[in-house]
């Protein structure tokens, strides 16, 4: 079965603390993974994709095929990182399968 799991509905950390948003997937083919972010009152937007292997706004994510994970990490959280984060998997026929999302709150 094709599935994306984000085990935490809510994650609250203090400003300056490290952040890790968890994402696990189930997919029989070669996965293409994404992180999308939705800031308050804004539309969904792409944060990063695993094939680009870049750091966006200080966030990185590494695809671990052995653990079927694609966790999102940032070493030092900032208040502007508060948002809803979605992990998504693109299938071979270009459908996006989404996790339920994690609400990240950065406390001052």
């Amino acid at each position, binding site marked *: 079965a094709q599935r994306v799991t984000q085990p935490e509905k809510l994650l609250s950390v203090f400003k300056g603390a490290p952040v890790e948003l968890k994402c696990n997937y189930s997919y029989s083919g070669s996965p293409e993974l994404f992180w999308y972010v939705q800031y308050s009152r804004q*539309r969904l937007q792409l944060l990063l994709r695993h094939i680009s292997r870049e750091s966006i706004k200080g966030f990185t994510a590494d695809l671990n095929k052995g653990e079927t994970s694609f966790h999102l990490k940032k070493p030092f959280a900032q208040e502007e990182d508060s948002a809803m984060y979605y992990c998504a998997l693109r299938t071979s026929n270009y459908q*996006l399968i989404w996790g339920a999302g994690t609400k990240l709150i950065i406390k001052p």
Partner: protein
Amino acid sequence: DAGVTQSPTHLIKTRGQHVTLRCSPISGHKSVSWYQQVLGQGPQFIFQYYEKEERGRGNFPDRFSARQFPNYSSELNVNALLLGDSALYLCASSPETGREAFFGQGTRLTVV
């Protein structure tokens, strides 16, 4: 850049009615996808269109249909509305299938 635009932004319908949601993609984008997002969940894929042809369909009943026009805009139609169809409907466009998807602000449908 206007981005992906969806209309209307909010809509209230009665059970059994029909609804049409509209999406205008970013200029030059030929692929449009539709998603349903129920409160507290991630988006669920409904349809993808590219060059006016259906390229993918999610696990939704036949009450859901869509089409893409020559100018690449798209409509999502839902017949015989149920209370469970209440959700945020998102449209996303991309230059081609497999490229980054850009999302609209969504249409909030409430079925009463």
